[in-house]
């Protein structure tokens, strides 16, 4: 044995190795995996990891976008380009179509975060997906801090936080009965900063809205929302053009931008390292509803 070599791996390499292990484990043990791809930075990183896990072969599963119909044009364009570039099969589960067909009903406030869940579950049933990769991270939110890498969902897609399978070593238990499924979170141990360091290291292109740009915004509850077809000025509100970027990309009617001058990946890393507010706290109207807003949505089958 050589004692002279350190055989050192950086934390990013260790995280990558763990995520790749998880993805290969799923591919080996499940019949019909699918990767949830929204065009957000976490799902973009997850897609890169999938690319690396199976190289030189193609990614051996399709990707799915649960499309609320409230999209940023830059993100949709990115999604289509990326999917075409990798030769992947894209499944779009459309909330708008589900509303039009009467499968779900539009909420009075017009937000679509909550009604995504039945649309997602219907697609899982239709395509009989048994493993769903999601880009959620445990550092995002406190209910997620208790989520497993392999998270069991019953036939109704529900999460039972008090009844999770213990997860030891790297021995993931993916066993399930027909109709049940497993949500898999390969980025569980990554932080927002890890994701950005990885984007820099791998030189992964992102939708332009992640970098600072000038945009017409309106300030609501200390958050800056883009004024567009989904968010209109209310009485007494005025809009202004500010230099902003998006820290997260979700439903365009619910996701706010942050004031930023960071127009390169290195500047974003400096900004994220120095920031004092969590990404969901800074940008997500949907998480501010209650202390347990995320837990409640997850119980219903949300990611």
């Amino acid at each position, binding site marked *: 044995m050589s004692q002279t070599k350190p055989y050192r791996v950086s934390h990013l390499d260790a995280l990558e190795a763990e995520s790749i292990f998880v993805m*290969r484990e799923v591919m080996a043990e499940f019949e019909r995996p699918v990767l949830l791809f929204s065009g957000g930075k976490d799902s973009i990183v997850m897609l890169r990891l999938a690319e*690396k896990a199976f190289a030189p072969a193609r990614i051996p599963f399709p990707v799915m976008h649960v499309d609320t119909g409230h999209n940023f044009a830059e993100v949709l364009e990115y999604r289509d380009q990326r999917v075409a570039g990798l030769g992947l099969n894209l499944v779009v589960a459309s909330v708008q179509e589900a509303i039009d067909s009467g499968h779900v009903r539009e909420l009075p406030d017009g937000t679509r975060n909550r009604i995504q869940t039945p649309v997602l579950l219907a697609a899982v049933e239709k395509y009989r997906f048994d493993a769903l990769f999601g880009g959620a991270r445990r550092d995002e939110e406190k209910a997620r801090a208790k989520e497993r890498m392999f998270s069991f969902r019953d036939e109704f897609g529900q999460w039972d936080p008090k009844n999770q399978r213990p997860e030891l070593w790297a021995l993931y238990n993916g066993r399930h009965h027909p109709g049940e499924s497993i949500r898999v979170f390969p980025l569980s141990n990554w932080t927002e900063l890890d994701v950005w360091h990885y984007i820099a290291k791998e030189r992964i292109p992102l939708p332009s809205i992640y970098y600072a740009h000038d945009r017409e915004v309106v300030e609501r509850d200390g958050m800056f929302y883009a004024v567009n077809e989904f968010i209109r000025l209310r009485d007494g509100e005025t809009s202004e053009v500010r230099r902003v970027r998006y820290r997260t990309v979700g439903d365009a009617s619910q996701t706010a931008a942050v004031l930023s001058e960071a127009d390169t990946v290195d500047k974003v890393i400096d900004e994220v390292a120095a920031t004092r507010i969590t990404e969901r706290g800074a940008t997500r109207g949907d998480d501010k509803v209650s202390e347990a807003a995320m837990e409640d949505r997850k119980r219903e089958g949300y990611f």
Partner: protein
Amino acid sequence: MSQAVLENETAPSARMDLLRFATAGSVDDGKSTLIGRLLYDTKTIFADQLEAVEAASASRGDEYTNLALLTDGLRAEREQGITIDVAYRYFATPKRKFIIADTPGHIQYTRNMVTGASTADLALILVDARKGLVEQSRRHAFLTSLLRVPHLVLCINKMDLVDWDKAVYDKIADEFTSFAAKLEITDLTIIPVSALNGDNIASRSENSPWYDGPSLLHHLEHVHIASDRNLVDVRFPVQYVIRPQSTTVTDYRGYAGQVASGVLKPGDEVMVLPSGMTSTIAAIDTADGPVDEAFPPMSVTVRLNDEIDISRGDMICRPHNAPAVAQDIEAMVCWMDETAPLRVGAKYAIKHTTRSARTVVRGLQYRLDVNTLHRDEQADGLQLNEIGRVRLRTTVPLLADEYRRNRTTGGFILVDESTNRTVGAGMIIEAQ
């Protein structure tokens, strides 16, 4: 709350290494306060999180900001004021990224601690200086040694409440050291702290001039973990076979997996188990190109020079250093299921490395009392949170090492075949 100043204010970089540690103790020991303090002093707690916790503390009538509310994320936990499940927390300093597996002290303590400790490089146990060692401290120390966590830190907390009396520290330290000596704990560090006031957490405290050891954070940043990895025994469990169905890449057949231990190099002679066939490594591929060597925890794809029938669950090792190919397994098993006990004669699914099989419990030699280490040889089953020495017979051979030598090829889980729940965790003592 005062803000301790870190010695080095540089932002975390892309080139840190990773330390995973498990914390054990109950709320009363100040564990959540200690974790909150670590997160706070490393600037990991964000303004909106602190605001939410301050508001929640105020509405509960807590006298000070209750940092436990940061870690208790589930509705039931906040309602009942207890921690139910292992929570994972993250922080980083310029030197290291840390993953904390925060395991609750009250409920299902053994199951949760075993889960958290299974992947930990270090375990952190808290005791209250006023109370000294309690049953729970000994149990945590025992589980740390059972799970072979390489480093143990004992934080003697609430030293401010005993006026930083060195005699109190010495008495607890001596008692714990002599207990630990029976447990094969190889690396023990004992630190006097006040989590509430931040003494000896991020920096050395002036309140303990008699203590010449490191602060907790300094120790976490510098504890030497590189030698903990087993770089001697080559063990590469095959996870997945990569065979591109493509016109551009032809005749590619690679064995994907994560190196469990040892160092693999192109040209090395290898043996594949269970077949026993030998070949040499043609190349070690990654998506970033071939590499000269692979070691833990790298995920790579190995190609061999000979066409051998290899599939998931097989193991690549060296001809003169191979694991046992065994169907009779002796192991310590920790039972994790509340619905049914482990019984002699019962059958379970077993997952060991990338290999899945079925197993039957042939015998239960004894049940271990984790508080007294007494062995009960009359026991006829293991209930939730109980640990015992078990004899198993598997349907197909496992490619196994002793857990004490290799945590990856020595650990397994048992799964109930009807409910699919993970019901047991096993550490192999002997495989033949």
